[in-house]
């Protein structure tokens, strides 16, 4: 009985805080993406024929963890199979956040473009039974900065 109460409390806490945090984060992401829309980041390797640019390596990373409720849902999904939507939103948020951080760093340097953007995903904290506790997303690329004369 006690175990059940603990489980339900954890689920409720996870759902409440997790849902609130996700909503807030998405709002924040959309706002910042709008502000940085004039700084495109592309994954192309071919440089435009411009020469008066400085190159600088920029990167952004974020470690994000899944809440108890979502992990529970994912656990259920493991039985029935199918899309684990609760993890999809988590990774989507993390990727967009990482790209935004990279863009913010580039923006502070006065960059006009970010080239050859690469993404790296790794699970860094393994919880019980090797379930993914948190993931790190890294985004990096080369910022092109107009030369100052």
């Amino acid at each position, binding site marked *: 009985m006690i175990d059940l109460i603990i489980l339900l409390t*954890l689920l409720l*806490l*996870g759902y409440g*805080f*997790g849902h609130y*945090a*996700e909503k807030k984060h998405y709002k924040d992401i959309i706002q910042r993406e709008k502000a940085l829309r004039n700084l495109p980041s592309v994954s192309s*390797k071919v*440089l435009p024929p*411009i*020469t*008066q*640019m400085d*190159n*600088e*390596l920029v*990167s952004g*990373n*974020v*470690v*994000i*963890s*899944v*809440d*108890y409720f*979502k*992990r529970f849902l994912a656990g259920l999904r493991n039985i029935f199979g199918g899309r684990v939507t609760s993890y999809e939103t*988590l990774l989507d948020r993390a990727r967009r*956040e990482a790209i935004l951080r990279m863009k913010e760093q580039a923006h502070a340097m006065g960059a006009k473009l970010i*080239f*050859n953007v*690469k993404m*790296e995903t*790794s*699970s*860094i*904290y*393994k*919880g019980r039974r090797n379930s993914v*506790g*948190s993931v*790190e997303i*890294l985004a*990096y*690329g*080369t910022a*092109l900065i107009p030369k100052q004369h």
Partner: protein
Amino acid sequence: MILTNLENITGKRITKHLGVVSGSTVRAKHVGRDIMASLKNIFGGELKGYTELLHESREEAIKRMEQQASSIGANAILNIRLTTSSVAQGAAELFAYGTAVIVEDDHD
């Protein structure tokens, strides 16, 4: 030192290739952070401590790569790649590698 993950540098010409350079660092998190992380695993959200730790370690790996490159006389590193792998529980290896080259201004 010019760092880029492209294969060439705008306005520069590669005069000499010096081979692959790399830098790595293995970091572990202290217990306090692990406890915070397990709490966050209930509530969800960003683990700021880990984000910072990994960011700093990555800078360290890049710095070591730069040192290696400058010791063999390079002035730029091209095609940099960054990788992460968890070696043991609670520890991660951050690895950076790239091609060290000597570049000079292209006057054409």
